[in-house]
């Protein structure tokens, strides 16, 4: 444990030192001005305090009305460069690789989690068309953003050696524009998705239990969950909402430079965007894994909107109970979402598994 702390703190320290290396002067501007005024008298032509001041990214006068035209030297760029090209890219990149390995390992360990019981053939509508559309819009735009983002971030190291400059430039231009134009679309899809799924994602006490046992993954004991289990809720709140806001907002700052934001703002936004995006991708990898390879039946729910009763019972027992008890209609699409209004029996829709 001690070693771990030492390692982590060493890491943090390294980052901090890196960030400190090129930071500004220790003295405030007024003090340097005073020093310069005295220097003029005692040692004419010695401008050292002036240059110290200039180094500190102070804003001077420039008649051109462009933002920051009066800044002679901005030192944020060096920090940004060091962090972006160094710490952030490397940790982020390796984290993504690690996640892939982790998922790969997990798959090798557990394989696809199958249903324990045979499908009943009775289907429950899990997602309406709107819900699915919202989800897929988010999913597709996310994927494009992720891939284009990765091309821009790592293509220089990974792709240029393979496909050379001109081809990569083409690719990067496509990636950049896709990224920039799909970004706002992704934010809109996120908002729609958030609204659509909000009701089913309110945290409940059961979620805590689920969370403690990691959905029974660790000890193998089954924990009942609602329509969305705590893991999914966590993804909803932490991923879709929190990371969505972080990545979306920072992305907008970068995507609309026409509001005259300063370079410092954009550097910070870029780093936040990078961090958020990597975390988003890490989460998404888990989410996608669980939704596809990781768990049988999950993808179908998102594809067709319906699930088998057996699947529902096994994975989302409380929700299943609610549907059974009529609290939640089994087919919301036809009832127009008239929750708890009838005691209709679920109707079989579509094929079976």
């Amino acid at each position, binding site marked *: 444990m001690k070693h771990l702390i030492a390692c982590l703190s060493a890491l943090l320290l390294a980052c901090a030192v890196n960030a400190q290396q090129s930071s500004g002067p220790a003295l405030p501007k007024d003090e340097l001005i005073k020093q310069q*005024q005295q220097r003029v008298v005692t040692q004419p032509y010695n401008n050292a305090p002036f240059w110290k001041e200039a180094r500190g990214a102070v804003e001077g006068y420039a008649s051109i009305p*462009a933002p920051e035209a*009066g800044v002679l030297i901005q030192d944020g*760029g*060096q920090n940004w460069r060091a962090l*972006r090209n160094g710490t952030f890219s490397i940790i982020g990149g390796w984290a993504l690789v690690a996640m892939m390995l982790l998922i790969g390992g997990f798959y090798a360990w557990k394989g696809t989690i199958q249903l324990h019981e045979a499908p009943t053939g009775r289907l429950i509508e899990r997602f309406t068309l709107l819900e699915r559309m919202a989800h897929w819009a988010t999913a597709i735009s996310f994927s494009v953003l992720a891939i284009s983002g990765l091309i821009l971030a790592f293509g220089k190291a990974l792709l240029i050696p393979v496909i050379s*400059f001109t081809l990569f*430039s083409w690719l990067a231009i496509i990636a950049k*524009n896709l990224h*920039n134009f799909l970004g706002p679309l992704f934010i809109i899809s996120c908002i729609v998705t958030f609204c659509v799924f909000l009701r089913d994602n309110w945290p409940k006490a059961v979620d805590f239990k689920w969370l403690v046992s990691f959905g029974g993954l660790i000890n193998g004991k089954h924990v009942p969950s609602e329509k969305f289990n705590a893991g999914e809720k966590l993804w909803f709140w932490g991923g879709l909402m929190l990371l969505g806001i972080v990545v979306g907002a920072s992305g907008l700052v970068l995507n609309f430079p026409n509001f005259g934001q300063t370079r410092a703002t954009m550097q910070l936004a870029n780093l936040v965007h990078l961090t958020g995006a990597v975390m988003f991708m890490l989460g998404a990898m888990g989410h996608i894994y669980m939704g596809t390879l990781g768990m049988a039946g999950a993808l179908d729910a998102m594809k067709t909107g319906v699930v088998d009763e057996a699947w529902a019972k096994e994975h989302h027992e409380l929700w299943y109970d609610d549907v059974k008890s009529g609290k939640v209609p089994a087919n919301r699409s036809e009832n127009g979402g008239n929750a708890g209004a009838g005691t209709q029996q679920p109707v079989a829709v579509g094929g079976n598994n």
Partner: protein
Amino acid sequence: MARMKFICDAERCIECNGCVTACKNEHDVPWGVNRRRVVTLNDGIVGAERSISVACMHCSDAPCQAVCPVNCFYKTEDGVVLHDKDLCIGCGYCFYACPFGAPQFPQAGAFGLRGKMDKCTFCAGGPEKDGSKAEIEKYGRNRLSEGKLPACAEMCSTKALLAGDGDVLSDIYRERVMRRGRGGDLWGHATAYGRPDTKATAPAVQSIPQKS
């Protein structure tokens, strides 16, 4: 090996903006793109006001080059940092990274549409054939290949801005600094420890009666 450099002498620069328009003139730079600009710090403060002309400084370890996602920057064998506009994707990273605000974009459009980055070329054009139409249109004139130095420095009104081979520049600047010290009150003891006989305070500005 020669290393092309700019030096701006803060004791000489009078913010006349000659360098700025010389550049606009030579390269037909459009409105809104300022490859070079003059910044005055401590404007109006007696004893502390200095002006500096700044453009791409053609860094040895160029941050723009380091962060460019498509690697469109390159360095000539004389240390001039240039870029290939055909490769540039207009992402703006070089602009974030550059300490001097050198990278410029013809637009600042929504959705990150900035157009191709443009910056000071040290009057050395770009990768196209020197002096060709393509080069002039994309990067401006190539004075270096004509045996001339950047227009901004050549036209500087007080010879504050110097451009050229770093060795020559340091010779020029050294000579200037040596001459400035004429009279012995600058170098040696006085520089190191200050002149004992001078007033130790900054030049004062007296108040002026304005009203009756």
